[in-house]
């Protein structure tokens, strides 16, 4: 069982992570992967994610551990961008492998809900040349409530 959590300030190619992650768990039944990208088409020119290393990383590691235990995973990989990103660039990658598909799929869903609503990231978007901070949404709390 392996947990990998990575915060990185530069662009990444999801396939470069998922292939080796999957290969590192021979015998697995299924791998589920989610990649979130900076959406295009809604006036967003750029997105900036700020984190606070002494809390963001331990928070992600704790989330990963609880997902592995809860869903009986063989391995879990989380990669999260920080810094300035543009439409089309991956922001987050979560990949879970397990003996059975339900555990892998649910773990990805669980991790994404918690990363989005509970992780120590602050986000601002640049629209028409101006930066705007993003506030929490009511839906974030509903997302988290699904797992309680």
């Amino acid at each position, binding site marked *: 069982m392996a947990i990998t959590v990575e915060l990185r300030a530069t662009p990444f190619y999801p396939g470069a992570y998922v292939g080796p992650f999957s290969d590192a768990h021979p015998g697995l039944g299924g791998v589920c992967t989610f990649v979130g990208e900076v959406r295009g088409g809604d006036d967003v020119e750029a997105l900036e994610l*700020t984190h*606070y290393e*002494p*809390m963001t990383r*331990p928070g992600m590691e704790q989330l990963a551990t609880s997902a592995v235990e809860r869903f009986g995973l063989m391995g879990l990989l989380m990669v999260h961008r920080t810094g300035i990103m543009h439409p089309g660039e991956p922001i987050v990658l979560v990949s879970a492998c397990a003996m059975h598909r339900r555990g892998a799929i649910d773990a990805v869903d669980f991790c*994404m*809900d918690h*990363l*989005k*609503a*509970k*992780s*120590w*990231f*602050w*986000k*601002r978007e640049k629209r028409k040349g101006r930066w705007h*901070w*993003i*506030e*929490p*949404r009511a*839906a*974030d709390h509903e*997302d988290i409530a699904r797992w309680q």
Partner: protein
Amino acid sequence: MVRLVFLGRLAGLAGRVEHEVAAPLDWHGLLALCDGPLAEEIANDRVKLALDGELLADKTALAAPAGAEIALLPPVSGG
């Protein structure tokens, strides 16, 4: 010295991301160091404090010794 780290929109309000101030520092000392709008934000329940990476359950009980780092944490952004 005590290092203050301003996260998210607090960095904009503070006009900087980090700031070194004299040690020790408690809650009232922190508020006294901040301008009106920033002090108001920090006093808001939605803003949390962390001391050396540990979230404070009661931020008004802040007691930061020399060498400590205080993070000022507004609500995290949604998905």
